[in-house]
């Protein structure tokens, strides 16, 4: 078990979410950086969709009340275990009473504490993710608080290497597909959406300018600051379904990107949609940082998605191969 000693607000239990219920108004939730969650789970020997702790406010402190194999993926938080510095994307075995500390990330914004067995909270509608707005799922439907004790599930892969496993993180492994941001400007690929043409010349300004992620951003959506863009004529639309990645433009003219806790419906015009393969990167973008939308194509979106899937499969297969090899050598 893991005891939460200190936590900031909005740190929650998340897995890959509960898709399939938007039609009845249930947001999917799930990790903002689903790639970090999957890889973290794989290297500790869990199913890739096991629940973990998503930490987005710091400092964070937890105490292990038994031997727990864990990994921290996503943002590098300069984590320590009993004061000894830990590497992210690397597994460690904590002993009873050891204390894990996470500080403000050096880069990126969300860390995932993936523990062997996965966080054991009740599954609601097929997921252990916390829906903060719905007040259900995860840890009693709320953010973690000091004093909470998180149980862990059954270990599905007991053949864990005694010295653990680490992984080349997706930022490096997929650097050709995800070029590093230049001058702190994060490129996010998007496709024009249904109402793109209604913005006339302002549509081009949407792509050309840099947007700042405002402080009014959370797991539901990122509100962007910049030169407002407006449709050429007022638009009256019926509410329609929205999903993570949809970029809406409210009357203020400053776009909103729907994220993991996306609304299930909305009536603002949609100027573009972030490609799914770039959402993990957006999920790691910091409040106050700048981004620029890069107009892409369906074929490029599919190529990026394929590259990400290839990386995940490579980690899955190679980690299994390494474990088999170590077992054979033992």
């Amino acid at each position, binding site marked *: 078990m893991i005891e939460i000693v200190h936590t900031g607000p909005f740190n929650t239990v998340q897995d890959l979410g509960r898709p399939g219920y938007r039609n009845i108004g249930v947001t999917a939730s799930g990790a903002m950086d689903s790639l970090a969650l999957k890889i973290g789970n794989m290297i500790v020997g869990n199913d890739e969709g096991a629940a973990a702790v998503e930490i987005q406010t710091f400092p964070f402190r937890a105490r292990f009340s038994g031997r727990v194999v864990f990994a921290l993926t996503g943002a590098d938080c300069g984590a320590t275990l009993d004061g*000894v510095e830990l590497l992210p994307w*690397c597994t460690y075995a904590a002993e009873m009473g050891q204390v894990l500390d996470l500080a403000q990330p050096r880069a990126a914004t969300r860390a995932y504490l993936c523990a062997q067995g996965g966080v054991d909270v009740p599954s609601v509608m097929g997921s252990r993710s916390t829906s903060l707005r719905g007040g259900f799922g995860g840890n009693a439907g709320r953010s973690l608080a000091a004093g909470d004790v998180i149980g862990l599930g059954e270990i599905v892969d007991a053949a864990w290497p005694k010295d653990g496993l*680490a992984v080349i993180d997706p930022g490096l492994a997929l650097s050709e597909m995800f070029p590093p941001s230049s001058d702190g400007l994060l490129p996010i690929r998007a496709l024009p959406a249904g109402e793109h043409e209604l913005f006339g010349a302002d549509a081009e300004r949407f792509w050309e300018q840099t947007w700042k992620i405002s402080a009014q951003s959370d797991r539901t959506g990122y509100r962007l600051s910049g030169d407002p863009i407006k449709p050429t004529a007022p638009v009256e639309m019926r509410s329609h379904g929205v999903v993570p990645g949809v970029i809406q433009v409210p009357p203020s003219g400053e776009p909103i990107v729907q994220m993991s806790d996306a609304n299930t419906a909305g009536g603002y015009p949609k100027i573009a949609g972030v490609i799914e393969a770039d959402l993990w990167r957006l999920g790691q973008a910091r409040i106050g940082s700048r981004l620029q939308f890069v107009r892409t194509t369906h074929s490029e979106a599919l190529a990026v998605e394929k590259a990400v899937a290839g990386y995940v499969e*490579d980690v899955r297969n190679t980690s*299994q191969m390494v474990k*088999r090899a170590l077992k054979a050598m033992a």
Partner: protein
Amino acid sequence: MSDVDFSDPATIALLTSALEAAGVDGVEIEQPASGLRILLAKGSRPFVSGGSKPGGRAATMVIRAPMAGRFWVHHPSWPATARNYPRPVTRMDVLGFIRVGPILLPLRTAVSGRVEKCVAEHDAMVGFGDSLFEIEPHS
């Protein structure tokens, strides 16, 4: 009869092909100064490990490669973690990694002490049992 160089990739490839053709699961070859193990599993890439078996001084603990792969003295994303030697080490420290594709196998020591030296080159291909670090354990 001349000695066969079992660290030669061409020799390993030849042996692997021969095992596959013969439907044999694996082979282990031991020599006084080196060893080679090739394991084949259905639907998986062959697993190859091998290398020399140098002896360490009695008081010195040698950290050896647990399997074949590329030796990395630091995590590729955190090169700043590379350090000079000698340096102190605890049981939790990761000394380096064996890289196999996207997976990094951490190299750790069972005891605390001092890493005297790193005896392998960064990014070198190493085999099972190759010496990587020499550690002077704390008494």
